[in-house]
């Protein structure tokens, strides 16, 4: 159970990140009203919402990936 504290830290960080990012996507971005009055405004706002949500998801992916690979490299170095 040597690594349990490090892993608990990763779980809690992932928990907070998932919660904040999901909350921003669903309560703010998805709920955005269409500010455009021109013909393709509806389509444009959907594209903007999708891209913004995807970028936020990628931010989560990159942060978690960095944490995990950093942790794994450090731990594997300890035994070599």
């Amino acid at each position, binding site marked *: *159970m*040597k*690594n*349990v504290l490090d*892993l*608990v830290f*990763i*779980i*809690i960080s*992932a*928990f907070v990140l*998932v*919660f904040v990012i*999901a*909350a921003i996507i*669903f*309560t703010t971005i*998805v*709920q955005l009203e269409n500010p455009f009055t021109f013909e393709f405004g509806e389509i444009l706002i959907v594209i903007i919402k999708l891209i913004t949500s995807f970028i936020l998801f990628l931010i989560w*992916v990159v942060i*978690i*990936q960095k944490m*995990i*690979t950093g*942790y*794994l490299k*450090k*731990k*594997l*170095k*300890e*035994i*070599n």
Partner: protein
Amino acid sequence: MNLGLFEYGLVLMSFIITYFATKILISLLIDSKRVVLDYHKEGRKFVAHPGGPALIIGLISSLSLAFVITNDIRIIAILGVVTISSAIGLVDDFRALGGRKKPLILLLASVPIILLGTYEPNLDFLFFGSVKLSIIYPLLVLVSIPVTANTINTIDVLNGVSTGFVIITSIPLLITLILIGDSNMVLVTLILISVCLAFFVFHRYPSKIFPGDSGTLTIGAMYGAIAIVGGIELIGVFAILPAILNSFFYLASMRDFVEHKNIKVRPTRVLSDGTIEAESNENAPITLVRLIVAGNPSKELSIVNTIFVLSLVSALLATIMGVLTWAI
């Protein structure tokens, strides 16, 4: 919220049915030589497989009776999810479906919830408020059952992990549903816990039976169905975060839906004394077990206990979130 004598009797009955079904199934599987090698043991130890049919019998019989007692259409939706996912799991146990095909076919398991309309398209975010997602929500329902089913399936790599994990992570669902006062969903959650507990008696370290894909996909799909139908999706997602992260690490490092048995470099190595150590090859997939044993070679039981500690942490966080969401 009140559960009567019938309901408590039903929960007890689900435990007894699953317990004896598992006991009988172990003998049947061993007699018919349906056994698989337990990789993480010293020597060559074989274990009965698949134990899914015992879990399926326990769940389907109890859910059918629960519907008779409550007359709640939501239980029919959950029964539909369980039936479809167990059928897919059984096919996968006897004729491997493949890493890409399985999640796609599992989309079918979400259909009963969508067809019967047994969901509220709202998400309650603590501190951020509640949102209505009329268009997106059915799509989220469609993908969530394959996600929870595959997530529990992917974490089932060591003795007792999948059933033990579902028992622990169902507790936040149970507490939140009690607070909400949804007695029918409390009954269904108690049935899931009770059935998993009966199976866990034989599945815990050292295992006498493995659930197989039929078992893990069924309990994973039912877990997801309870979270959606009970309107506590976020609590459900956060409680199983260690398993979701395990699937995520695996997918991100493999960049494809590859079955465990088909991977070229395994994430861990088993030494001759049964100690499990992390693979140092960079091409090995990243899994929760590899992270646990990285720089810390351990015996199987110690790894299983670490996974349970991590699931207790996520279950505690999810429970706090459930209580606060209900209170605020």
